[in-house]
């Protein structure tokens, strides 16, 4: 089980890194979210995978039964999934806006934040753009 999870996490991070290195902004965002999925698998497996019983305290007992799964990494991974999901949504909206504004999502053409020498020095919000 742990090997299957480890190999899946590795495969997710590898394919995510491949996509993230792409020149296309959309592929880069999908790649980063795949790396995030691999990271989430690592978080989940941090609590060990051999225990599969639901983490409920039996009636009358004061502690978890032997063989119960560790609930903490599940809570952690849930938090990480929510954060990753919201960041991916934000990034997809960002890429869509870039596509509308620039025409495509090829990041080699995106030099607006770092213009060639001699073309910078504008305030972040020049007056004439208001």
């Amino acid at each position, binding site marked *: 089980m742990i090997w299957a999870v480890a190999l899946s996490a590795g495969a997710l991070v590898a394919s995510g890194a491949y996509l*993230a290195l792409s020149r296309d*902004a959309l592929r*880069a*965002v999908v790649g*980063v979210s795949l*790396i*995030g999925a691999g*990271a989430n698998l*690592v*978080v989940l*497996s*941090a*609590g*060990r995978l051999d225990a599969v019983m639901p983490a409920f305290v039996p009636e009358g007992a004061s502690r978890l039964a032997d063989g119960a799964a560790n609930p*903490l*990494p599940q809570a*952690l991974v849930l*938090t*990480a999934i929510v*954060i990753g999901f*919201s*960041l991916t949504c*934000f*990034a997809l909206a*960002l*890429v869509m*806006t*870039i596509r509308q*504004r*620039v025409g495509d999502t090829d*990041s080699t053409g*995106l*030099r*607006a*934040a*770092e*213009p060639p*020498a001699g073309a*910078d*020095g*504008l*305030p*972040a*919000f*020049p*007056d004439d*753009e*208001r």
Partner: protein
Amino acid sequence: MNADLTSLVVVAPLLVPLAAAVASTVSAGRPRVQQAIGLGGAILLLGSALVLARAVAAAGQVRTALGGWDAPFAIEFVADGVGASLVVLAAVMGLTALLFQQDDTDPAPASPAFVPLVHAFLAGACGAFLTGDLFNLYVWFEVVLIASLGLLVLGKERRHLDGALTYFVLNVVGTLFVLVGVALVYAATGHLNYVAIAHATMADPYRVLPFVAVLSVGFLVKAGAFPLFAWLPATYHTLPAPALALFAALGTKVGVYALLRTGGAVFPTVAPLMSDLLGWVAVGTMVTGVLGAAYHWDIRRILAFHSISQVGYILLGIALGTPGGAQGALVFALHHSLVKGSLFLIAALVCREAGSYDLRHIGGLSSARPWLAALFLLQALSLVGIPPLSGFWAKFLVVRETLVLGHVVWAATALAVGALTLYSMLKIWLEAFWRAHPREDWQPPPGARPASAIAAAGLAAVTTAFGLWPEPVLRFTFMAATVLHTRP
């Protein structure tokens, strides 16, 4: 103090900006109410930060465990000298940024999202400074990241979108390193609480060394360390001026703080195994940052690259691994945040008066605006480290501790980088202030802008006071570094 009051004192610097973020979001339709909430929240935050610092000065550290559980199972919030001083710094910077925004020095169009995002940023930073739990630290990193992305895209122009994309991809990879590092440390020790992890890793540091290394890579990305700083100089100058000052002061400090905390208190036996490597990373950061600053002509890009070189000094202090090094790193972080924040605000004033951030297109400000020139000179000299300004004390503490421990090459690099700092500050001074304006018919625009001038001068006054009367800060940070390195 009773327990409830202690809890309130510790978590107030978190609750105030969170509440202000919510209240200013709700009041987004009414700009005046929103501005009042923003400024009021920032003043309240400063007040609660000072109360916390007082409590910490009296007790060494104050902690509170939420939810009625005992440590190490509760999520703890711990304020010691390091956390409390950085919370005070965050409050000062938040107040300054919101004050600066009150007039039209920065031509950013008023956005209803600005005030909520600034307070969310402050909440994330204060949360990171105060938490006593490793996973919680990751969550506060993400809060800072989300607020930063919001501030980056406020402008909606092409360069803001471009900058935000760069910032997103590189920083998310950084936080994913943090997340995986947290998971691996938990898998190895079964703990997330700082104190519990410190106990669990005491005996066999080599077992968790690779996991701490993964964690530290994430923190180094966030801190803007060599060679992982590419996101910083590519994006900072697309921000509106007050947000830029906030980023320059707190953006990298969250990562630096995490390294200081984990190195000093969470993994005290693991960190020494990595200290040589971290020292050379610090040297690389100092040198590349200051060389990048020498290349640029846009004042903001000079200052942004220069921030990287200053992060190098802080990392050097952390790498030394002694209480003296930690004190140097903390004093340097406080000094650099205040000085660099005010320099970015001064740069915005320069741009408003002279018409551009590009040094090749401006000049003549020393005669047209002598008060601005004096303000810049004061802060630039402090950055270089001229006594008796605050930069001198910061550099002195770091370099002295480096020499005491016998790292001559690192100390020599730190001093040489100081000389190159003087070069880039002189470049701004000569081009923007000393020489005549390249357009002969140039006149500075009419009208006074008191709010932004007060914001920039206020920060300068704080750093100058620290330089002239360093004793309280030095005493507080000495106590902070000692507590940080005390084994529980």
